[in-house]
């Protein structure tokens, strides 16, 4: 099984270890992983800003790069959602491109969804010990139905105790450019999320989207919380040495 890993632009820039963790998980499960060297960004920032031309260009580029692979796996709910849910709409005016987008969409999975529902893995390499709470990022949850999958995977780790937070499905306030355009509101929303996290007194908050991670970790630290760790689901599953 040849699986293409779409690392995402934010992981490339900020947290390569999440990309390596995803790679390790896929290889551990026996996949042949291909990382197309020319990948950049799925175009989501342009799409959400209303720049259809740019999102179109980047969608076509990504479709070309991941052509011929059995699956495309993404360690991010919002980027996977962009490909699966939005690409067909981005390319709606071009029948051929749209058909290609739909074919790609059908082969594209968010990482935990892929591990659970396609690979059906039954063990993970990570050895984390401690309590965690899981934040459901918006796109993964509401566009792709990612909810039970990460919890099932955490359930495979004997050292992990899952403590659900209040309003786990509520937005963290990131929203891409929103976080800068409406920084005050974004921070206020993030504060509510941080309070829910802290109320669980978990050792770590785990989630599946780097944008939300940066937002939540950034706000936690600014609020003076120096101890709650903020981990990507791939990191905790793969083991923190990546």
């Amino acid at each position: 099984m040849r699986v293409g890993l779409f690392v995402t632009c934010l992981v490339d820039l900020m947290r390569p270890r999440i990309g390596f963790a995803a790679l390790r998980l896929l290889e551990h499960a026996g996949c042949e992983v291909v990382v197309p060297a020319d990948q950049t960004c799925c175009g989501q920032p342009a799409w959400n800003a209303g720049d259809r031309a740019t999102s179109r260009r980047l969608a076509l580029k990504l479709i070309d790069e991941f052509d011929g692979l059995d699956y495309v796996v993404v360690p991010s709910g919002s980027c996977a959602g962009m490909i699966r849910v939005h690409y067909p709409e981005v390319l709606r005016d071009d029948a051929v491109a749209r058909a290609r987008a739909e074919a790609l969409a059908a082969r594209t999975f968010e990482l935990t969804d892929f591990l659970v529902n396609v690979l059906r893995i039954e063990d993970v390499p990570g050895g984390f010990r401690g309590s965690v709470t899981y934040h459901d990022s918006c796109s993964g949850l509401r566009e792709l139905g990612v909810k039970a999958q990460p919890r099932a995977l955490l359930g495979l780790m004997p050292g992990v105790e899952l403590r659900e937070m209040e309003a786990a499905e509520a937005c963290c306030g990131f929203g891409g450019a929103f976080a800068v355009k409406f920084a005050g509101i974004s921070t206020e929303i993030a504060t509510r999320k941080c309070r829910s996290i802290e109320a669980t007194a978990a050792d770590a908050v785990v989630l599946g989207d780097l944008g939300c991670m940066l937002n939540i970790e950034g706000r936690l630290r600014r609020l003076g919380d120096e101890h709650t760790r903020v981990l990507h689901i791939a990191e905790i599953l793969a083991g923190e040495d990546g």
Partner: protein
Amino acid sequence: MRSQAMHFQARVPAKLADERLQANLARASGRFVAARAQAVAEYEGDFEALRDAGRDIRDRVVADLDVWLETFEASAAARGAEVLYARDGEEIGRLVVEIARRHGVTKVVKSKSMLSEEADLNAVLEAAGITPVETDLGEYIQQLDDNEPPSHILAPAFHKSKEEVAELFARAHGRPPVDDIAGLTREAREVLRRHFLTAQMGLSGANFLVAETGSAVLVTNEGNGRMVTTLPPVHVVVTGIEKIVPTLEDVATLLRLLPRSASGQRISNYVTVATGVRAAGELDGPDHLYVILVDNGRAALAGGEFATMLRCIRCGACMNHCPVYQSVGGHAYGWVYPGPMGAVLTPLFTGLENARDLPQASTLCNQCGAVCPVRIPLPGLLRRLRERQMDEGLRPRRERRALRLWGWLAARPRLYRLAVRVAARYLDWLADGTDRIRVMGIAPEWTAGRDLPAPEGRTFRDLYAARRKHSKEEGR
């Protein structure tokens, strides 16, 4: 109502800093969210299938709006109602004043109508020497508070605590303050009773208009709607042209959705079906009934890419669940409709150029779309509005240029790789050996309230290339 929607961004800091407002918003939205969740969980059928049915009913009407309007008009006329059309808010005002003059009306009792807000009707009536009295408790509170506009489409005083209401009542009614909700309600009821009995006109909105029977359906909790529609000799219904529903059967379906989505009730305390004038031998009902159907931008949406917005049944679930609405409240939005539905409607009704912030003021988290009883794809509509803003040059030049530059780079992998490498190093340098960046010159907004966790310093791409090279050498 004159739109202040241009000033969303400017109003935000004061709303965020208002601790009393923040506490009220948290309390009220918490209550609404929990109530809906419970009502959906307890629903005896398949709530998702019910949402599908609701969407389908609304779509059927929106697809043939003109035909349904004619049907409604004929049915209503057969029951003695006069159906009038208003193109915009101004025309609503003119028609209502004309009707009032015709019947010698000096006082109007009103139940909830958002269209009356679109028309700024209270001000228009007062200017014509007619006294409007709001009888919905929330609207009454707002009217007493110097005609402050509602901040929520169902709960106009969503932003107020009961203590604030008690103060307001004490001042307005000249009585000692009462501090429990039942007492406050009793006090309002005593004052309003007198008005119900003396007003010559009742003015209401309508949640639905039934095409087959010509009825106006009102969903209320306080019983004031029933007084307004039956006691005074003249009843005027003001509502949007899209409110039509084909049959009473369809109303029954939508009634399963609306209260559950709005307030978590299985059914509202009152459902009034007002059909025609009082017929010979009937005891209740008005002698004269007028239905004013308002366009004010609605007809233009039918058949277009925003047609799904016409499905809206004004339940308020989208705003109750919206993290942005929960943070700033309804007044920040600046016009009649707040929250996600308002962020779509306000630019469409009052002009894209007059509400520049609203389509942007969303994280696109889709909590609204997930609860909307008629499945309006609100984030998708906001995204479409953003696209139109982009196409019509309504976004700052700086933003457009930055996007274009970034898009150009992202389409050129070699250059992009270099740019990201530089960016990663730069951010790493800003972090200065720590795990975070506390002040970031290029996006100071981010670091105003948050740190930016430090990057690792090298890009995935470079590390991956190095690793591949390494394992090849080892393999050799």
